[in-house]
């Protein structure tokens, strides 16, 4: 019987990670827009850095942070929890690698929001949070939606950092990219082909869905 668990593990990690990244990335983008000068460029650089760093470098840092002797790992172990080599780690890795994509898309989209609309809302007496939720977000939505799609597909394809902090435990942390790698290296081309096909299909569908939404909005 063909083991389908990598599909559910991948989808679960990608969905949860995309949701987390949507919230964090959008808030970070809003935060950076409110900053000025050197501080703005510094925070912007830090938020974008995971995009250009090799996933193994990110995995290394996550391992250092969340490992048994790492500061966050030690804190979690006091509550009897550990993240490394559990399915949480697949989510964590996906969040870190896809965060910059969401952040950059959201920042670009929020920058495009008509500033007169924002100021009009403020003169009307709307609170800053309300301005963000009801004026800025809806107007920036197409760009944010693009960011969500990119983050989802990136999360789905995450390999390097996941391998380092989640490992390749079949049925537990083995995602589709992991299954492809290990099937290929053990010469099981049939399994590899199946997963490669599924991966192509998933990515194609999510990108297609996003461009369908964008086209429908245009009308």
């Amino acid at each position, binding site marked *: 019987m063909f083991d389908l668990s990598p599909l559910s593990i991948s989808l679960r990690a990608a969905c949860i990670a995309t949701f987390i990244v949507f919230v964090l990335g959008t808030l970070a983008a809003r935060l950076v827009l409110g900053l000025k000068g050197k501080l703005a460029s510094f925070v912007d650089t830090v938020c974008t850095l995971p995009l250009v760093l090799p996933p193994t470098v990110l995995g290394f840092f996550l391992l250092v942070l969340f490992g048994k002797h790492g500061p966050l790992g030690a804190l979690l172990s006091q509550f009897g929890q550990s993240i490394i080599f559990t399915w949480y780690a697949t989510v964590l890795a996906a969040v870190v690698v896809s965060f910059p994509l969401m952040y950059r898309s959201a920042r670009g989209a929020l920058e495009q929001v008509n500033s*007169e*609309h924002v*100021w009009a809302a*403020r*003169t*009307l007496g709307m609170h800053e949070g309300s301005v963000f939720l*009801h004026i800025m977000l809806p*107007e920036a939505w197409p760009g944010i939606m693009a960011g969500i799609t990119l983050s989802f597909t990136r999360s789905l394809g995450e390999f390097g950092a996941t391998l380092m902090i989640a490992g390749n435990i079949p049925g537990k942390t083995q995602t589709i990219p992991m299954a492809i790698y290990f099937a290929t290296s053990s010469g099981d081309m049939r399994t590899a082909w199946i997963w490669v096909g599924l991966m192509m299909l998933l990515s194609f569908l999510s990108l297609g869905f996003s461009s369908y939404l964008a086209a429908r909005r245009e009308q």
Partner: protein
Amino acid sequence: MSLSIDAQLSIAKKTHSEPFTLDVSFTVGNGEILGLLGPSGCGKSMTLKCIAGIINPDKGKVQLGGVALFDGEKGISLPTRQRRVGYLFQSYALFPHMTVAANICCGMTRMPRESKEQYRHRCREELHAYLELLHMEQFAQSYPRHLSGGQQQRVALARLLASRPDAILLDEPFSALDDELKDSIDQELKATLLKTQCPVVFVSHNAQEIQRYCSRTLHLVHGHLRQEGKSGCQQR
């Protein structure tokens, strides 16, 4: 409560090679419509933005009804949200993703919120009152992009009035309208503005427009006030 705007602002802004300075000082009484006339780029909009808190002047004071909105010396600068200054943008700045009704309801931020039910009820009542006042009942569920320029202006005005401002700023309110429409709107808008009993600042580059609306006109040239006089018969 008597309302007056006392604005002494001076801004050095680097637009081109040399800095642009804005130095204006005027008072607008209750229920008075003051005209601010000048060519584009003379600092009219900037003056309004200083009053609304969109730009902060380097020094000076902005006061509304005895309350300091901005005071350079004391380091006071109320956030725009708390200033109770209604701003009608040149583009009207209607929220494109919201219906006319939703746009107007966005202005109802300063309504007392005793209970949720009562609040909703009052919002609905007030919405109908504004739609009726500006003859927009049949457009309540339309989106701004489906409205003409004149209709958009009325929605923007309703939204502004719904926010219960203590002062009203109009930034070239007619520049987006054609001439025929201007005349038909004229008297209605003026009557509506006068009824609020707010101090109103009316900015335009068109002397005729200003004359029709304002009892007093200030000329702004290169960021400086040139002269003060009654518009209409006295000047002509």
